[in-house]
């Protein structure tokens, strides 16, 4: 990996300037900053942490794993129940009705 790309990894979302791809980052980062401010004020602590940590992250692989791995434990702690026939019928009916409603 060249020195340039190493440097780039040290920044998170806001990319250095000079190439076209980074113009996307520019618009995103601008609105993102506003949204983060809103999120921190308007949501619960967990979501705010998840959202705000974007500002400081450096190592993409580590940051990625920090996003993904806690989810495994959350998902596995959940309990599942077998649906009754009645529930399954109702579910299918709801999905079909929703579809019809949406398409007018």
């Amino acid at each position, binding site marked *: 990996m060249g020195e340039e790309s190493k440097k780039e990894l*040290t*920044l998170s979302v806001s990319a250095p*300037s*000079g190439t076209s791809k980074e113009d996307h980052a520019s618009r995103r980062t601008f609105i993102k900053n506003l949204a983060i401010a809103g999120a921190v004020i308007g949501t619960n602590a967990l979501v705010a942490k998840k959202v705000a940590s974007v500002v400081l992250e450096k190592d993409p692989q580590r940051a990625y794993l920090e996003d993904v*791995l806690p989810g495994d434990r959350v998902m*596995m702690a959940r309990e599942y129940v077998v*649906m009754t026939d009645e529930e399954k019928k109702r579910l299918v009916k*709801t999905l*079909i009705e929703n579809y019809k409603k949406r398409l007018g």
Partner: protein
Amino acid sequence: MKREDKKTTIEKNIEGSTRRDFLKKTGSLSVAGLAGVATLMTGTKDAQARVTWAEWFQTNYRLMTEEEKREAIERLEKRYSEEYGKKVTVDGRPAQKNVLFGYALNIQKCIGCRRCVKACVKENNQSRHDPEIEWIRVIRMEKGKFSAEDMDKGYPSDYGIQVGGNAYKNAGVVLEGQHYYQPERVPEKDAFYFPIQCMQCEKPPCVKVCPVRTTYREPDGIVVIDYNWCIGCRMCMGACPYWARRFNWGEPNLPKEEMNPDTHYLGNRPRMKGVVEKCTFCLQRTRKGRYTACVEVCPVGARKFGNLLDPESEVRRILERKRVFRLRVDLNTFPKFFYFID
């Protein structure tokens, strides 16, 4: 690199940012700001930059006219073909009429080989390293033990779970790092496997929170993202109760020779740093009547896919005849991805 040096590099990067970044940080996307961008962009002769100049100003995909969509797609096809050195197509095909996609996964059959994960990465042009992005997680869980006192509450299944009148209780324990387990042989004696990916919720909480409405639900039920408009605020990631979304922390690393050139605007086209991505039920395939890559590759046929509006479809038959699970505590998102056993 020492922590101090790293810090200095970050600071330098920030200090070295452009006028565009400066204007952005002042918090005003003003006329002056746009003029700054314009000067910068028209000053370059680079074809890619000119293409992206247009991309920068394009509107949200779902608000585009057909003509605008066509133009946006042409721009991307040109840019990607140049970038990846091969003919890349970007499909803009809308949802088919009378189709609502649903997915069913047989946890009794899954052997945890993770072929679905690899096939998905390949099909959907996910970043190969730094970070290695995977939309499907296959979690390995320890099988639980049957306990006699639960005898009257149901009957034990192979999976160490209690199934019965008072339902299904997961007795497995997921271990740290099991996301990347690499057993010599699967299935392992004391484990079972639980694949997770986007559930394409009917009422998707991720969609509700997106401040720029760049993620939305399509008529065929697939929740999509217009990457060009994603600002990377990660609100959707916080809202998704299934942890199904992935964030591009770095510029994605997609080797030219591995890039899948058959892409869809709302699906597997190459993403950029700072945007969110997730499973789209391979809409570049399924809207053409093909199976998803994961369904196709699964060696034991654990994965089933079809049209929920069609009573003859496999997924509808599963809903009718098999033991299908739902979360005990209803999250009210109406997932269209179901787990079942025979």
